[in-house]
Each structure stands twice: as structure tokens, then as C-alpha cells.
């Protein structure tokens, strides 16, 4: 199971290859400022995802910053996590925790 930060890093990289600071800004935008990753949390997530083979480094960008991209295994892991979360939300709806989709 992915942590919240790891899942958001994967979601960000599904859009395009990015360097650390770009991932950080993108996650903030994706979550409407609700999730702010610090440098430590971001690189802890990157280190774990890279170790698990879910992301990999790509050629440095013009500013010579280290860049990351999601692997095929990473896409599958992100999809599985999204499905898991969707199931969780459906269950919460059945119990009346959330308003039903209409």
C-alpha cells in the first residue's frame, strides 16, 4: 500500500516527467493547496518509490535538475491504489459517511 505522499508523487508524474520542485508545486495544485510536501517528505517518497521500481530517474532538465518518470510498474501500482481508494469511498457512501454520487 502506498502512503499518501507516495500516491500523490505518482499522480503528479503520471502527467509528465518532473524534477523535485515541480512535483511539489504540482501536488499542491492537484490538491488545491491541501497537501504541501516538504523537501524531506518529498524525497522520502521518491526514495521509496525508486527503490520499489515504481519511478526512475530520467535525463536532467535544462537547469540540470534530477528528473523523474513513472515506470510501467508504477502506473499499475497507482491504478491499483486508485481502485482501492474508490472501493473505500463506495463503502463509506453505503454507510452514509459521504453523500451519494448523483
Amino acid at each position: 500500500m502506498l502512503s499518501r505522499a507516495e500516491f500523490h508523487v505518482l499522480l503528479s508524474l503520471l502527467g509528465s516527467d518532473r524534477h523535485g520542485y515541480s512535483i511539489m508545486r504540482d501536488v499542491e495544485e492537484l490538491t488545491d493547496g491541501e497537501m504541501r510536501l516538504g523537501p524531506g517528505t518529498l524525497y522520502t517518497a521518491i526514495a521509496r518509490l525508486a527503490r520499489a521500481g515504481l519511478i526512475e530517474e530520467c535525463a536532467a532538465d535544462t537547469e540540470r535538475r534530477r528528473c523523474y518518470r513513472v515506470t510501467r510498474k508504477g502506473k499499475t501500482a497507482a491504478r491499483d491504489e486508485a481502485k482501492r481508494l474508490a472501493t473505500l469511498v463506495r463503502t463509506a457512501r453505503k454507510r452514509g459517511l459521504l453523500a451519494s454520487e448523483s
Partner: protein
Amino acid sequence: MNGERFYRALLRLYPQPFRRRYGAAMTEIFVDLRHHSRTSGLRFWSFIVSDTIRSAAIQHLDVWTSVSPRVAIRWLLACVVGTVLCNLAGGVFLWAFEYLYHPYLEGTTFLPSAYGALIGATLGTTQSFMFTRMSERATWILVSALSTAVGWEFAIATAGATSLEHGVVIGATVATAQWLTLRGRMRRPSAAALMSSVAVGTAAVAGAVAVTRSLAGFDALGAPRGTAPITIEAVLRDFYMPMDWTQCLVAVAATAVAGLLLGAITLKPASSLFARAH
């Protein structure tokens, strides 16, 4: 000290390999964040410091849990079996001394270092099976035996009456010997030696307290702690000789727990050492 220098100092909280790999990139991000930050200085720094502390703790935990399960199990098993065998070997040694004791030998005593060498060689032998080469095994056993022998003499000469004091002195001596022997083989031998020192101290306390307290429960009125002459009282001080098989089993279980503690505390440095040996 400016902000960047302070952040670089904060990075020292991370394990070294992580810092080497990502430290420069994290500093760049910190500089960008600070440049674009619209929050007050206090809020910004509380965010950075809490983020660093939390993620550094996670990184250290990751390092400890990344130990190979095979190496970890073998090391823990070696420490548990070794500590239990130490207890048995020590018991046999003391029993033999008492059994063979004769009034003609009044005033004679055995050297505490001989007892220490026996204990060190026993634990060292079970741990040495982690090595693949015979020369490494022999060195490990020799270093363990000699350092424990010296440590035991040193503990009796300098330490007070408690197991903690004995354990720390013996542990520190063993740790110094390991540090001298392993300097070239480990990345951070001083940290490993410190772990060893803490581990032997903890195991000594845990073993002595568990054995003494649990066995004392079998004989609340206080059975004699052995009939050995006063000269070996220092060695016997922390031990309560088991009277029957149930007490023996309790003593074995208690020393096994002490061995588990010893193995758990030294697991990380040991795994880095033996990962190379395998």
C-alpha cells in the same frame, strides 16, 4: 548562520547514504521554497523543521527495517543460542568449581578472566558461524574470548556491585576490541562498538534481573545463593543457582530474552558486517 546553512545542518539528521543521494537536491528545493514562500518566517521554519524531523525518523526506520531477513534471523538465533549456552557453560563451570572444591584448597581461587574467556568464547563461537571463512571465524572467537576475559577482570577490579556496571564495563572492553579489529571492515566501527557496549550492558541487566527475580520467586524465603567461597562471590553476585528443572527452564528462558535483546540492539551493525561476508 543564514537559512541555507541552517538547513544543511538540519540535513545531518538523515542517514548518511540518503543525505549523500538527495541532500543537494533537497537544499535546492529549500532555496526555491524560501524564495517563493509567502508565509511568515516562523511558519515557514516550523514547516521545514517538522518536515525534516518526521522524514528523518522515517528514513532511520527504513534503514533498520532494510536488514536482510535471512541475516537478521541468523544473527538473532546466534545471539540467543550463544547467550543460553553461556549460561549453561557458566553454570557447569561454577558447579565444577564447587564440586571439586576441597578444604585443602582453602584460599585458592580461579581467575575471573578464565570465566570471562569461557563466556566470550561460547558466545563468540555461535556468532562466528555468520562468517564464511575459517580465518574470520577463528579471529572472531579469539577476539571475543580475550576481550571478555580482560573485561571481566576489569569489571571486578573497577565496577560496583550492580549488573549494569559489570555489563557496561565488559561491554565497553569487548566493544573496544571489536572496534580495533573491525576498523577496516565496517563503515562506522565506532557506532557499532557503541551499540555493542550498550547491548552487553542491557543484556547483562536483563539477564541478571530476569534470572534473579524470577528464580527468587520460587523460593521467597531466600535459599542460599551457593556455597562457593567468598573469592568468587563477585562472579556469582548476579546469579542464582537453579535448584530444579523448572528453575533451570526459567533461567534458560530469561537468558534467551537477554540474548534476543543483545541481538536486536546489535542487529544493524552486524548485518552490515555480515552482508559483506555472505
